[in-house]
C-alpha cells in the first residue's frame, strides 16, 4: 500500500507514547501533506535535539548545556533538593513555578519485580548531594513503587541531619505527578510533610 520509506516512518511513529498503528498512519499522512511547513522543520528539530540534548551529569535533567540551566541558575536555592522519578515530573514541578530549589532525577523507581534496585537509581550519589542541602523533598508518585522509593531514600538520609519531607495532600493514590494539574502540585508542595 505504501512504499518502504513511509512504512518505516509509520512504524517508528507508532512507537511513540499514545500512538497506535492507526494514529501513526494519520500522523505520517499529516506530515507528508505539510512537507515544508511541518515535516522538514520537524526533521531538523529532531536532528538538532538528538545532537545537542543530553542528560545533566549533576541532576539528571535533559538540556543542551552542561550542567543544565536549572543547575547553573544562581538564583535557585542550593538548600532545597527535590527528588523526582523522571524528567516528566521535573517539568510538571517547573510548570507550577512554585519551586525554586534544585532537582535530583532518579531515572526510575525501586522495583524488585522489574529488577530495578538502589544501584540502578544512583541513590548513593543522591545521598552525597543531599549532604549539602537543608531539606530534601521527595516528590515521587503516590504509587507503591513511588512510596517505597521515598521511604527507602528517607531511611538512607536518616541521621545525616538533613530534613526530609514528602508531598502531602491532593496527590491521589496511584497518582503520577505528570498527570496532575499544576494547582494540585503546588498545593501538595506547600503542604509537604516531614518524613
Amino acid at each position: 500500500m505504501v512504499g518502504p520509506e513511509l512504512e518505516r516512518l509509520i512504524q517508528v511513529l507508532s512507537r511513540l507514547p499514545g500512538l497506535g498503528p492507526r494514529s501513526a498512519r494519520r500522523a505520517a499522512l499529516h506530515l507528508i501533506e505539510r512537507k515544508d511547513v511541518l515535516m522538514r522543520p520537524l526533521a531538523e528539530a529532531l536532528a538538532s535535539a538528538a545532537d545537542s540534548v543530553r542528560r545533566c551529569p549533576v541532576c539528571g535533567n535533559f538540556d543542551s548545556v552542561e550542567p543544565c540551566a536549572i543547575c547553573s541558575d544562581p538564583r535557585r536555592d542550593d538548600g532545597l533538593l527535590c527528588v523526582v522519578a523522571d524528567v516528566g515530573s521535573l517539568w510538571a514541578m517547573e510548570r507550577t513555578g512554585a519551586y525554586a530549589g534544585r532537582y535530583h532525577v532518579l531515572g526510575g523507581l525501586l522495583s524488585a519485580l522489574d529488577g530495578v534496585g538502589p544501584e540502578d537509581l544512583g541513590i548513593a550519589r543522591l545521598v552525597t548531594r543531599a549532604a549539602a542541602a537543608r531539606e530534601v523533598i521527595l516528590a515521587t508518585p503516590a504509587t507503591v513503587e513511588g512510596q517505597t522509593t521515598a521511604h527507602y531514600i528517607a531511611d538512607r538520609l536518616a541521621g545525616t541531619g538533613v530534613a526530609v519531607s514528602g508531598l502531602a495532600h491532593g496527590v491521589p493514590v496511584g497518582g503520577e505527578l505528570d498527570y496532575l494539574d499544576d494547582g494540585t502540585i503546588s498545593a501538595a508542595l506547600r503542604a509537604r510533610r516531614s518524613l
Partner: protein
Amino acid sequence: MTTDPEDAQDASRRLAVRRLTLTDFRCYPFLRLEADPRPVVLTGANGAGKTNLLEALSFLTPGRGMRRATLSEVARREAQDGAPWAVAAVLDGPGGPVEIGTGREPGSERRTVRIGGSPAKARELDGIASALWLTPAMDRLFTEGAGGRRRFLDRLVFGQDHGHAAAAAAYEHAMRERTRLLKAGGGDAAWLTALEDAMARHGATMAAARNAAVARLDAACAEAVGPFPAARLALAGEVEGWTAEGGAAAAEDRLRAALFRARARDEAAGAATIGPHRTDLAVRHAGRDLPAGQCSTGEQKAVLVSIVLAQARVRTALSGLAPLLLLDEVAAHLDATRRAALYDVLSGLNAQSWMTGTDERTFESFGERAQYFRVESATVVKNDFLPTDEHR
C-alpha cells in the same frame, strides 16, 4: 432498608439494561437484545449460551467479569486470532439512558471502555452500573478453600467502598515485591522495610474496610427475609482482629512489626505468612446455628442468596444505586417456596435482575412480573407467552 414488594419502585426508575449488543463475544458472533426494566429470564439447553450472556453483562462493571476470564478467553474462538470483541449496552436508570461500551480493540491487550461514546476508565463504570452475581461455581464457596471466599468477600467490600480495590492492589503489589526481594536473598534491609511499610499501611486500610463492610452486611443479614435464612458473617484474620481491637493505626504498627519478624520464615516459605491476604470469611446459618459449610447444598444456596440480597440492600442504602443481579442457574437448588419468595424480592428491587435456567417451569411464579427469552445455539428469542401458557 427492607425491600417491600409493595412499594416496588416505579419501573421507569429502575436501573436496567434496555439494549445489549454482543460482537464476537464467547459463542456469539453478533447478538442484539432489547429488554424492558422487568427481571429477565433466560432459558435454554445446556451449552446454549445463557451464562455467556450474563458474563457479557458482568463486563459492564470494572474487573474481569464473573468468570474472571482474560480478554482473549472471551473472544469468540472462531474469530481470527487477536480479533476484537465488544459488549455494548444502553442502560436506563434514575439519571436517564447511558451508553456503555467495552471490549478489546485489535492488537490491544487492554480492555477499552466507552461511556456515552467517549473513552473512559473502567473504574468510571462504578458510578453508572454495578452488578452482583451468583454462579453455580459458587455453590461450593463454603466448602472449598479460603481463596474463593476471600475473593467473594473483597467483591462485596469493594461494592460498598470503592477505595478498597486500590488498597488491595497496592497491598498485593508491595507483597509481591517483598517476596521477590526475599527470594533474591533479601539483601537490602531498608528496601524490605519500605515495602513492609507499604504492606502495613495498605493492609490496615484493607482490614478496616473489610470490618466496616462485613459489619453492615452482617446487620443486614441478621434478619431472615421470607424463607431466606438469617446468616451471620464474621472475619477470621489477624489484621482484621487487630483493627477491631485497637483501630487501624495500631493494626498498621502491629502488621509492620509482624512482617519484620517474619522475614526469615517468609523467605523459607517463599510467601508472606501473615497479612490480610490470608483472611477468611466465616459464615453461619443463624437458624440452624451451624457453619454454612455444614448445611445442605440447598441451604447453602439459600444462605448465598441471603447474602447477595443483603448486599443489594446495603449498596442501595449507601449509594442510592441498586446493583444489577446476575443469577446463573439460581433456581437449581431452591425449593418452590424459596423460588417464589426470591421472585417477589427481585420484582421489588430497584435494579433489573437477570436469571438463567434450563426449565421454564421453575420461573412460573414470576408470571407477568418478568420477561422471558429463549436461548438456543447462540441466538436469543423473546418469548411472548408466559412460560405458564406452555405448560398449562
